């Protein structure tokens, strides 16, 4: 069955032509980073890495939500799940992420009420049906997810639901790009910017970053031809020495982004400094629930201070997330750490770089 607006982007013939064009054009050795975990997955699934000329290296960046979530936040979710009157809700990826001493999955097996939801509105529904419980949503993710969580809080307010709470560990992308450039260690020559984060924030949100660092940037879609087209655009910019911020995903991303979603996000959240796994604290890169909505803020209602969080010993997730290492350079990769028995979050999440390497046998 044909799927509108997508077929050509999956057409192997078109893709192979773009690869030819890239090969013809590419002279300089370049390191390009795909910031988004869904890009990483799609690149591996379609075998793009093996088809590109040797001049082009692709690095995976800090775009897998559970992977960048700080260990302290993972531990806080686990602590929250242990509260007697709490039903902890969240997206499935989070369940198996190893905290310092436990995982949500283990806590669930031990009898805690932890439920996987597909949407924040499902969590809201659980809250409506369980008025004697506090239903806490473990909020992770970037600007794509944050407006959906904001919408759930606004809906809860409208419905007068006072047992729905959010623990916001949301993060925003542009400050992380700046942090990557500041360390300079990963030597990134160009960025493939995340598609659906950009649907919300628009091309305009990257302008200050682009102006400050003058590094080639292109917003990319998720199909093989989208990604190849983005690589082509980056290589073309680099070879010509004309650096630009371009939108390679025009069917989904407009310059101003989704302004309604932005407004909801800004109404409910304000930016705060946040800790990213592998990067550390990045100024104004996290989203915190505003005072006005503090009755929905799990961090206000519960005292979840976790003091002795430790990242898994020997796990190189942190360095992998910023393009300094690849999974095979982690001594635990494929040995102590596998998708069945993961040591770090990059092996848990389907969007994690280690999981992608493992699955596609590298």
């Amino acid at each position, binding site marked *: 069955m044909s799927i509108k607006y997508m077929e050509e982007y999956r057409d192997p013939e078109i893709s192979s032509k773009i690869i030819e*064009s890239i090969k013809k054009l590419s002279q300089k050795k370049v390191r390009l980073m795909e910031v988004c975990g869904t890009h990483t997955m799609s690149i591996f699934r379609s075998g793009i890495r093996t088809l590109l000329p040797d001049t082009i290296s692709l690095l995976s960046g800090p775009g897998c939500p559970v992977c960048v979530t700080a260990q302290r936040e993972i531990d806080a979710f686990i602590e929250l799940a242990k509260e007697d009157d709490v039903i902890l809700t969240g997206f499935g990826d989070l369940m198996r992420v190893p905290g310092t001493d436990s995982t949500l999955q283990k806590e669930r097996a031990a009898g805690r009420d932890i439920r996987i939801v597909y949407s924040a509105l499902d969590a809201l529904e659980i809250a409506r049906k369980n008025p004697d419980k506090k239903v806490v949503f473990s909020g992770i993710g970037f600007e794509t997810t944050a407006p959906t969580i904001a919408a759930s809080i606004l809906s809860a307010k409208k419905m007068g639901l006072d047992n729905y709470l959010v623990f916001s560990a949301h993060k925003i992308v542009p400050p992380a790009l700046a942090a990557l450039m500041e360390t300079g260690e990963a030597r990134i020559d160009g960025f493939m910017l995340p598609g659906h984060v950009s649907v919300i924030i628009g091309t305009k949100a990257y302008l200050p970053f682009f102006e400050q660092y003058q590094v080639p940037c292109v917003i990319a879609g998720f199909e093989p031809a989208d990604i190849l087209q983005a690589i082509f655009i980056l290589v073309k910019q680099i070879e010509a020495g004309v650096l630009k911020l371009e939108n390679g995903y025009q069917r989904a991303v407009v310059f101003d982004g989704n302004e309604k979603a932005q407004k909801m996000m800004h109404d409910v959240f304000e930016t705060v400094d946040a800790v990213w796994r592998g990067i550390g604290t990045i100024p104004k890169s996290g989203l915190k629930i505003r005072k006005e909505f503090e009755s929905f803020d799990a961090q206000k209602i519960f005292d979840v201070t976790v003091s002795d969080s430790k990242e898994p010993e020997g796990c190189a997730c942190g360095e992998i997330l910023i393009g300094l290492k690849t999974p095979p350079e982690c001594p635990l990769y494929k040995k102590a750490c596998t998708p069945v028995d993961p040591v770090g979050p990059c092996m848990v999440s389907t969007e994690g770089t280690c999981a992608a390497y493992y699955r596609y046998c590298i």
Partner: protein
Amino acid sequence: MCLAIPSKIVKIENTIGTIDVAGVKREISLLLLENASVGDYVIVHAGFAIHKIDESTAMESLKYLRELGSIR
């Protein structure tokens, strides 16, 4: 996490839309869209429609792709 398939809205009731992705029907929230109508193609993330595809823009970029995909 990102589902990139453009999905057609086949029904709307208040702020809930029903989409059809290659024959599979699913309910999504329309709270994040300005105005959605039946027949629109939308991009969905975590149960919410986050973008309505504009037919002419989509065709424009398809033209670019076809050009790029036909270079010899």
